[in-house]
């Protein structure tokens, strides 16, 4: 049983989707229990796997039992790099599923089962992407997540949303195809598809390693993943796609999709090509970091120009992707950038989740889509607003939220790697975030047109009425509980940053390897 956990984790949501297809079409009430059960099973399996990784190290799972020679079957691998990512996926998808109960109502209710089928298949895809060790299998799973997310985004969208969706389809398919092409070049040079096998061959064979084809393969894999994660010049599809789709979709996709792509990039860098080759032989580090800097600055500036809440958050995602890509490429000798990027994957996913939850609640309950609509919302919805504040503080990078610590590690990496421009960009973006969110806080706290006179000069507000109308506007517990859990997780992840980062760092090659190879 225990050794089957990786397979159970991936398959449980898929079976859930099939069950909904079989039994959920007539009676929509069975949908949610099925969704919930399967996601909980997956979450449990994910936590189980993470636990095993902590105890025994890497778990390998060979599909269909084809182990020898390596690469004939499909291998799944859970190690220190992805153990936490799967737990993150489990937590996030479960929380969003709660949130989606109410949110689905905004869609065509007749399509509830289909929404959930897509939702669960997306979860399967995400789990699968995270733990697979096969380069081609990764492509298939990426396509599952892409197709389901195209469907989720386009269903129930507005005019803009539909246009955004077709752009997303085009960009997404090109991205996936580039990835596939890169894998093809690699396959042509190495004759295998298993990531670890490829790495072994590349390391053993210098001629292959330094051939044009492998370099081009890396470039195209990278480009494909960058398109998928909306790295700055390739980000065009993201803001519209995520801001004009239904809230529960946005809550699911925004935190997970880009972060998983970042994880995939790091996985490819570590498990296929090897850091030494990337940083020392290729030496693209400076170039990519500069691209990341541009992404951070541009994302922040564009976010500043938005009046719509969700769109602003989307541009912040673009900036955050810059953080992570930059961090992963810092090539500092102690891998702080890389560990910071990986930690930021977790922390940014939670932050984005929290903020998108709140944006979703606001747009539903008080019909607030633009920043100016938020007048006085703090008073109307204190719980939601408190969580929003927490998420925003994490985004700005205020301790003890996780956002602070991820920035801490990233900046440390930047300083050690000598990438001062990256450090400056991070700080700039923190400042911009501070401006952005305090602009919202101010409107939410004061209202747009505050009275000219002093509060106490007016007829005095009775204290007893002070918090009276509060819970009228507050939404149901099914929505607030996931929100609060997310907010608490942000703080917990921040407080336990040490163990978490220590755990992640187990995944990296011993630092001396890289250091000694450094020119």
């Amino acid at each position, binding site marked *: 049983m225990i050794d089957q956990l990786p397979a159970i984790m991936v398959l449980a949501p898929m079976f859930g989707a099939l069950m909904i297809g079989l039994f959920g079409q007539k009676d929509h009430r069975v949908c949610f229990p099925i969704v919930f059960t399967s996601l909980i099973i997956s979450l449990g399996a994910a936590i189980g796997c993470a636990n095993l990784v902590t105890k025994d190290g890497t778990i390998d799972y060979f*599909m*269909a039992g084809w182990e020898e020679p390596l690469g004939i079957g499909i291998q799944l691998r859970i190690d220190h790099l992805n153990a936490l990512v799967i737990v993150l996926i489990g937590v996030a998808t479960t929380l969003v599923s709660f949130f989606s109960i109410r949110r689905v109502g905004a869609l065509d209710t007749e399509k509830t089962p289909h929404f959930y089928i897509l939702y669960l298949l997306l979860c*399967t895809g995400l789990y699968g992407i995270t733990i697979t060790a096969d380069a081609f299998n990764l492509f298939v799973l990426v396509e599952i997540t892409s197709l389901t997310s195209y469907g989720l985004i386009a269903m129930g969208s507005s005019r803009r949303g539909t246009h955004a969706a077709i752009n997303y389809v085009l960009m997404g398919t090109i991205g996936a195809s580039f990835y596939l092409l890169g894998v093809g070049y690699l396959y042509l040079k190495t004759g295998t598809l298993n990531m670890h096998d490829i790495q072994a061959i590349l390391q053993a064979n210098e001629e292959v390693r330094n051939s044009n084809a492998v370099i081009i393969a890396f470039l195209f894999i990278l480009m494909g993943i960058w398109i998928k994660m909306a790295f700055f010049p390739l980000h065009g599809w993201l803001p519209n796609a995520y801001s004009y789709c239904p809230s529960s979709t946005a809550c699911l996709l925004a935190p997970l999709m880009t972060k998983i792509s970042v994880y995939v990039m790091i996985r490819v860098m570590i498990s296929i090509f090897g850091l030494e080759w990337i940083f020392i032989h290729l030496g693209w580090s400076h170039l990519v970091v500069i691209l990341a800097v541009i992404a951070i600055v541009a994302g922040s500036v564009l976010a500043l120009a938005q009046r719509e809440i969700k769109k602003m958050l989307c541009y912040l995602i673009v900036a955050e992707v810059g953080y992570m890509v930059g961090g992963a490429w810092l090539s500092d000798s102690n891998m702080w950038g890389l560990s910071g990027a990986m930690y930021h994957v977790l922390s940014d996913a939670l932050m984005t989740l929290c903020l998108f939850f709140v944006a979703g609640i606001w747009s539903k309950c008080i019909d607030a889509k633009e920043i100016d609509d938020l007048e006085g919302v703090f008073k109307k919805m204190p719980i939601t607003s408190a969580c929003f504040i927490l998420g925003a503080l994490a985004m700005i990078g205020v301790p003890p939220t996780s956002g602070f610590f991820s920035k801490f590690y990233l900046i440390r990496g930047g300083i050690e790697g000598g990438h001062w421009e990256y450090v400056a960009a991070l700080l700039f973006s923190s400042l911009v975030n501070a401006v952005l969110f305090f602009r919202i806080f101010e409107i939410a706290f004061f209202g747009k047109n505050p009275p000219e006179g002093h509060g106490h000069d007016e007829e005095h507000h009775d204290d007893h009425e002070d918090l009276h109308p509060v819970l009228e506007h507050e939404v149901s517990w099914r929505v607030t509980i996931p929100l609060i859990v997310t907010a608490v997780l942000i703080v917990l992840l921040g407080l336990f940053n040490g163990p978490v980062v220590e755990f992640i760092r187990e995944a990296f090659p011993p630092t001396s390897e890289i250091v000694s190879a450094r020119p």
Partner: protein
Amino acid sequence: MLTKVIAFIAVAITGSLLLYGVADFPSFGDPNSPANAGVEGGAPSISQYFITESYKDTKVPNLVTSVLADYRGYDTMFETVVVFAGGMAIFAILRVLRSKEEPPKPQSRAETFVHGDHNRIIVGTTCKLVIPVIQLFALYVIAHGHHSPGGGFQGGVLIGASFILLALAADLKTALSRLNEPNYIRLACIGILIYAGFGVLCQILGGNFLDYGVLQPVLFTDGPEMARSHSMLGVEIGVALTVSTIMFAIYANLASRGTLNEGL
């Protein structure tokens, strides 16, 4: 114009990069290329393993089938899931469930488009003759996938195509009366369930997911190899079920703009 220039530049850069990579490819058709024979000085490539060993492992002469359904069965399951997800996505996007929003049309636009005012005697009769043959052939393709080109996908697409043909020749309603909406979704689910069910059965019997070898006691075969061979057939049937229904579903939704009341 600007887009064209940008497109040209992007394409030129991408193309030259790709060609730069092509430059040190092994020449086309080289049996000793790394992909075919393994990296020089290293172990033989996995495809050599497939060619030399897979018959021993699975007793399936069509290597593509054995690699598809056994060695990389996990991929293939997800490939089926991709089809299913695609079908569901199209349904979610396009399907109009409140039909009152769509005013009924006096005459099918497509009908005038294709046929003018003629009735469909010739087309209808031809189809009546051809459809059973297609379906029969499809079943052959599925069942004989172990020995000849073909298998679940191809057969499934053929069955789906036969339904599409029915919808084209008669109209969508007729085709849907054979296979209505809740049912085709159910059938698609059952298809994947058959596939994944084999996998889970393997897990229950103590193997890894999709490790058909352990099914030997259940399938009453002589050895794990034949168990693999038989399971592959079962799996292909599952694939065919899903692919055929979803292909038809995609067509039905696209052709009727999601209303499912009139086809082309």
